[in-house]
């Protein structure tokens, strides 16, 4: 089997790759979002803590 044949998916390329593409995007967003939010929150808290110490 060559690559072209593989990507063609027997004529169902659009349906198959759309499904896999959307799945990858949704799963990535769901796992990355909380990591970004947690880091952002901790950074904010750290800044707040430092400001309090100055005062």
């Amino acid at each position, binding site marked *: 089997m060559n690559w072209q044949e593989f990507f063609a*998916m027997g004529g*169902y390329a659009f349906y198959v790759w759309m499904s896999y593409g959307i799945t990858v995007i949704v799963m990535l967003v*769901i*796992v990355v979002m*909380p990591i970004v939010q947690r880091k952002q*929150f901790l950074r904010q*808290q750290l800044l707040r803590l430092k400001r309090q110490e100055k005062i």
Partner: protein
Amino acid sequence: MFLIPKPVGKFFHRMASPPHFYDFTSRLIPWLSWIFLFLVVAGLYGGLVLAPADYQQGDSFRIMYIHVPSAWMSMFVYVMMAVAGGIGLVWRLKLAEIVAISSASVGAGFTFIALVTGSLWGKPMWGTWWVWDARLTSELILLFLYLGVIGLYGAIDDKRTASRAVAILALVGVVNIPIIHYSVVWWNTLHQGPIISDELRPTVHISMLWPLLVMAGAFKIYYVIAMLQRARAELVVRERNSQWVKALLESK
């Protein structure tokens, strides 16, 4: 509690402590990520490359390797959410409440994936993106239940109160789970019947079956990773005034 072995009880007792949970999950997640990666590479290689094209559906059946695991997980995660919510409701465990709400976004994602991939599979096979039949409609209701849980949690400022409200909503919604599962048996539907749990008809060849089971394992590990990440984010916000979060900040 006499039915639970002592080390297991001890483990859960320790996990109920927020700093221990935070520390333990930070060390657990890398291991889980490697297992997930291994399973997903093996499952995709088996499903997209090794498995032969279906004699009726051609290569379109390969959507099954994400559609079926995500549909299974959409129901599994809901039950986990309801059980964790129930535990939080009865024993007021903060971490059970957090596990419950952290499951909601992951479950909503799985439900969304199941609906979209089902639609993309239905178009070439049934000739339509969508039908209002029992299986599809009950799965759509599941998505609304998840979104309802997330919305309700966000709408109530006091997170302890929000968790209690969410747990009750989640527990009431559990009735939908058997309806989804048996919908293809109870009603006439375009959706095909069960192929795995029906032991009278072992209709799937092993070369097509093993990648499906491996993908199901991968999706289950993914759920644990994503739920724990959400829980960690939720935990630091809820515990922002506690000593351990302050210590965590100072160590940076």
